[in-house]
């Protein structure tokens, strides 16, 4: 089954809100080997100018991928998740995600392309606070490997 090109331009309703707290930030920082105290020590984070501990640069993926799931698992989208590999990922942070943020994630399908028997699917997920403050633009390209039909 081929990836459905008709989904390009489609924007899903926001998912969430996802509550970001100090425990989550600390766990993610540990998982990527960061000992920067801005992730674990609220005093250090405030001294650096943040309201509370802030997320590592790639923690946004935890939130964006939860939002992308609605698209990727949509039967009409034609994405066989067992054949998916992550091709490309990019984050633009408008400000660091901090403990206490209630985050909404809204995914748009930017592109569906075919090359060499594979499909490349690019999504853009905008992370904002529930009050509408921009946090992160997360752009992801997955490769759906072609297979025997």
């Amino acid at each position, binding site marked *: 089954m081929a990836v459905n090109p008709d989904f390009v331009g489609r924007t899903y309703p926001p998912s969430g809100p996802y509550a970001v707290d100090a425990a989550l930030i600390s766990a993610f920082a*540990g998982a*990527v080997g960061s000992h*920067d*105290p*801005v992730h674990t020590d609220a005093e250090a984070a405030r001294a650096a100018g*943040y309201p509370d501990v802030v997320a*590592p640069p*790639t923690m946004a993926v*935890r939130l964006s991928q939860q939002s992308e799931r609605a698209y990727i698992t949509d039967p009409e989208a034609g994405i066989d998740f067992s054949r998916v590999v992550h091709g490309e990922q*990019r984050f633009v942070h408008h400000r660091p995600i901090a403990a206490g943020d209630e985050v909404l994630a809204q995914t748009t399908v930017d592109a569906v392309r075919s090359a060499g028997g594979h499909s490349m699917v690019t999504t853009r997920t905008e992370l904002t606070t529930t009050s509408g403050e921009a946090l992160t633009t997360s752009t992801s390209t997955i490769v759906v490997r072609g297979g025997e039909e």
Partner: protein
Amino acid sequence: MAARPLAEVSVGEVVGPVTVPVSRETLVGYAAASLDQNPIHQDEAFARSVGLPDVIAHGMWTMGASATVVADWAGDAGRVVEFGTRFTKPVVVPVEGNEVVVRGVVKAVDADTGRVTVDVTTTCGGEKVLGRCVAVVRLD
């Protein structure tokens, strides 16, 4: 830690290299923190059943570990304002573990905006595992 002063940064400056170990436990921890529980990152039998040589690291773990090296150099992880990469080669993680080496070089410094562009090279066993990996940090 405090953010590195912009005035001390120049084009050509080298970041790292830093050697980062990765074990099966690392991947279990990353799976929990990221919610990515794909068994190819934890279950050797499953990974082999889908044609992989062994368990492989989450591409996002490799990206995250690379971000940590850039963030440590910047002196404040909140200063990493952009970070992007392609995933070009898997990091295989056998039972005995593996390691990646992360290095960077400053490619551009914008004195007006404080934006510093760092090209990042992450290798495993001498081979690049990330492509076009670029970070932008904002310094004062």
